């Protein structure tokens, strides 16, 4: 049920920019009140009867005239008609999709590409199949009408029962309010129940009031981070308001502030907003840095186990990440229509696939090259080439699309200047969970104990009854499996293609070496800090140069501390 306002007519006229419209407002108000009275009690649900259609046809008929002012009036009439289809008509008209056929029917074009367009009847909404563009005649509009239509639609939406529509409409009104809209808007604000919509509308109104030179409007704008608010305040602060207020000669109920007072107040508000904004930008950089860092950590943490703990250089690590990402893709192919479920299932699946591949690599190649790290490096690099080419010929050299499930897309809006994308947040959380799990495994389980024993002193561990070969396999499988997990997470952030792993291998090694080999905490700290450093450098150096600077920094850092941020101490450090 729509409570009918006086606003639509007011807005419509105002936006059309006609001075005469204002004098008609009383009349319009009267008509509205009458129509409101008439409509009370009549159910709108069964409004599609013959009478209604005849009236609606008249409304549309009025649009098909040559004169633009007349069209403006017709738009007003449509807004006032309270016809439930009004919004559809208006938006179709705005997009140029409201057209008339040769035989005089009004239709809405659904898709205006190609030669024949699918259309539906504007009145009944039934589909009329496809029609040739030659049979159709567009109802043209000009820029003034376009503005009028936008405000009209925004205002119609403000009365909608749909909260999302109201929010969107309030967003649109920011900075678009003019004298005619101001008054009804105050009424709408009174009635609006949603806090966010109301705050937006208050700001929208305050921008208008500020432009009229009202000092107390600044208070309403204080603390808002919206770019339009900043623009308005900046204009006020520069003294641009003065001329406008003088030439406009608009009645204002509030006290007219002195120009310099307005400018000073606006400047003060602007300063505090700018400061707030800087903090928010800092937070945003930090968030993106942490997000990038979490990706680095995730890619490197498996390597921290195979390289850091076991001392095996696995250049195919990046390809294990790639396998994890492709597992996600394959899962989504197996479960079409359920990307979320597929993603969750691919967490264990990706781990398993990569772990099995890791075991195959360990048994097939690495075990023969024990104690020859440089040869291991070369052989595993060969494996990485084979795996890449396998994917290229087996699946496709092109990138595959992995769907982001609905609950992961979108972003968490903190305020106007700061919104955190959800998928990155999930990846950050996932990284921390994986890290914690690995820490638990290494510190609290039998396997972790055995791994540490074997890496510290293989011969001693074996003589204590630990099966070193089995521990090797398990450790390598664990590290590889974690690489698979990284792939699952990365599939949500980047393109899934044969080169996915290659892009991360150098970064991963850098993170492990920077953090200190054999130290999981070091990897976490190194990854996150490298991510943040990269993000801080990016705005003034550019993405590529930032990366180069970080690489050079690490190269120099390793010269200074060859064993990384957190070098291992004691016996484990030797060898």
């Amino acid at each position: 049920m729509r409570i009918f306002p006086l606003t639509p007519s007011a807005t419509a006229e105002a936006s059309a920019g006609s001075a005469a419209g204002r004098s008609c407002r009383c009349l319009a108000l009267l008509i509205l009140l009458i129509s409101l009275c008439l409509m009370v009690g009549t159910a709108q649900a069964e409004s599609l009867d013959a009478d209604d259609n005849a009236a609606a046809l008249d409304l549309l008929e009025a649009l098909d005239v040559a004169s633009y002012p007349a069209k403006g009036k017709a738009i007003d009439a449509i807004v006032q008609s309270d016809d439930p289809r009004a919004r559809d008509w208006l938006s179709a008209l705005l997009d140029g999709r409201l057209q008339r056929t040769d035989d005089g029917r009004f239709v809405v074009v659904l898709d205006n590409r190609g030669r024949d367009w699918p259309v539906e009847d504007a009145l009944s909404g039934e589909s009329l199949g496809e029609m040739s563009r030659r049979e159709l005649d567009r109802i043209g509009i000009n820029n003034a009408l376009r503005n009028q239509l936008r405000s009209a639609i925004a205002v119609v939406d403000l009365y909608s029962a749909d909260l999302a529509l109201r929010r969107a409409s309030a967003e649109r009104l920011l900075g678009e309010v003019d004298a005619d809209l101001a008054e009804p808007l105050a009424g709408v604000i009174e009635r609006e129940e949603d806090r966010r919509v109301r705050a937006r509308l208050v700001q929208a109104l305050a921008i208008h009031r500020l432009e009229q030179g009202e000092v107390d409007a600044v208070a309403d704008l204080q603390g808002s981070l919206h770019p339009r608010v900043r623009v308005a305040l900046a204009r006020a602060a520069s003294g641009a308001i003065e001329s406008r207020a003088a030439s406009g000669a608009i009645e204002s109920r509030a006290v007219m502030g002195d120009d310099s007072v307005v400018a000073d107040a606006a400047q003060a508000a602007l300063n505090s907003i700018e400061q707030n904004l800087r903090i928010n930008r800092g937070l945003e950089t930090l968030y993106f840095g942490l997000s990038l860092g979490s990706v680095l950590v995730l890619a490197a943490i498996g390597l921290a186990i195979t390289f850091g703990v076991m001392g095996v250089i696995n250049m195919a690590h990046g390809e294990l990440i790639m396998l994890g990402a492709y597992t996600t893709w394959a899962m989504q192919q197996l479960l079409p229509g359920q990307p979320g479920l597929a993603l969750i299932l691919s967490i264990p699946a990706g781990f398993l696939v990569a772990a099995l591949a890791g075991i195959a690599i360990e048994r097939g190649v690495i075990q023969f090259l024990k104690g020859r790290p440089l040869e291991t490096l070369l052989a595993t690099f060969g494996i990485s080439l084979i795996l890449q080419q396998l994917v290229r010929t087996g699946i496709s050299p092109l990138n595959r699309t992995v769907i982001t499930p609905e609950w992961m897309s979108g972003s968490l809006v903190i305020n106007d200047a700061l919104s955190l994308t959800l998928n990155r947040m999930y990846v950050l959380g996932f990284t921390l969970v994986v890290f914690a799990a690995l820490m638990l495994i290494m510190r609290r389980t039998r396997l972790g104990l055995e791994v540490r024993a074997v890496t510290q002193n293989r011969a001693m561990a074996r003589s204590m009854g630990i099966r070193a070969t089995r521990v090797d396999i398990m450790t390598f499988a664990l590290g590889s499996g974690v690489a698979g997990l990284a792939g699952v997470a990365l599939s949500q952030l980047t393109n899934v293609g044969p080169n996915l792993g290659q892009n991360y291998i150098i970064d991963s090694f850098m993170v492990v070496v920077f953090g200190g080999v054999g130290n999981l905490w070091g990897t976490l700290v190194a990854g996150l800090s490298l991510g943040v450093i990269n993000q801080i450098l990016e705005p003034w150096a550019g993405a590529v140069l930032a990366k180069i600077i970080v690489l050079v920094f690490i190269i120099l850092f390793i010269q200074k501390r060859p064993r990384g941020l957190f070098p291992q101490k004691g016996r484990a450090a030797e060898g």
Partner: protein
Amino acid sequence: MYSSNFWLARPFTERSTQLFLGVLIAALVLVTILHVVVPQGHPLYVNAYTVNLLGKYLSYALLAVAVDLVWGYLGILSLGHGAFFALGGYAMGMYLMRQIGDRGVYGHPELPDFMVFLNWDSLPWYWAGFDMAWFAFIMVLLAPGLLALVFGFLAFRSRVTGVYLSIITQALTFALMLAFFRNEMGFGGNNGLTDFRDILGYNLRIDATRLGLFLATGGALAAGYVLCRAIVGSKLGRVCVATRDAEARTRFIGYRVERFQLFVFVVSAMLAGLAGALYVPQVGIINPSEFSPIFSIEIVLWVALGGRATLYGAVIGAILVNYAKTIFTGVMPDAWLFALGAMFVLVTVFLPKGVAGLLTYRYRKQRVKQPPEHDDSGTSPGNEVSA
């Protein structure tokens, strides 16, 4: 033990060097004869394309020798030698670029086409002097040498060795690749330098110049090989091998290990730069992909396949792998990476001494049957491959 006292002359007394130089010179002469004397259309005729291709292989071979010098005798697995190769190539490319003069697409008398395209109005300072051949040829050695000097000084002083060194050399070439991809660097960005016309006044597009470049590359390879053999056979070379096998022990004996490492590393980088400079005019282009870490690892594979710490093995490996690459990418391009990957795995697992290891294995078996009077060759390649 040595018949000559002059260190650079010593290699000529070694059997392996004599053999290598003999084969190399014979090959150069043979190709020249088959190209120049044999009439076109004859089945034995070697066309200009093949000469060019062989010249490319020879420059790769020189690069492989440079890598073998540091990896085989010093134990430093450099995954960044492509960077030195590319720097030498860029120095040569800049010279060739300036030689184009006003014959470029935009006809600017001084600026290369890509700078005109980017609306630059003057040459950046670091392009100064590259219109002179002698300056450019010095830079071919100096640019990679200087980078190696700075990088090596820092790395060896702080005793970064083994896998760590490999990884940071890889990071070095990766960083350089990213840098050279940027247009702002003034090296032509993604497209690199190309469209060359003359070298030293000779037209690069005629067959005679190509043959000349092929022979020059062969000469450079011979000279580089002799230089490396001389270094390896000298006392300095012995210290290098000692460093490779037991770095800490060598240091404790009293050698300043990092100085030896630095010297050999810089020499190797200069050789790589020379190889790059010979490569560029024959291929006709230099772009940042030569900096890619994969290329650098591929070089190591050539050495590993041919046989580490033999020098001639590196030459064999470079030519074999690149010949295979030419064949594969022509016949079935998809299979090349499979073949390359398989080579990496098989060579490291089953053929740790490479092709040269196979050769010397046979050779030594025969020699064991003979009376042991020849057994004086302490510097014979087989003995040194013990790591």
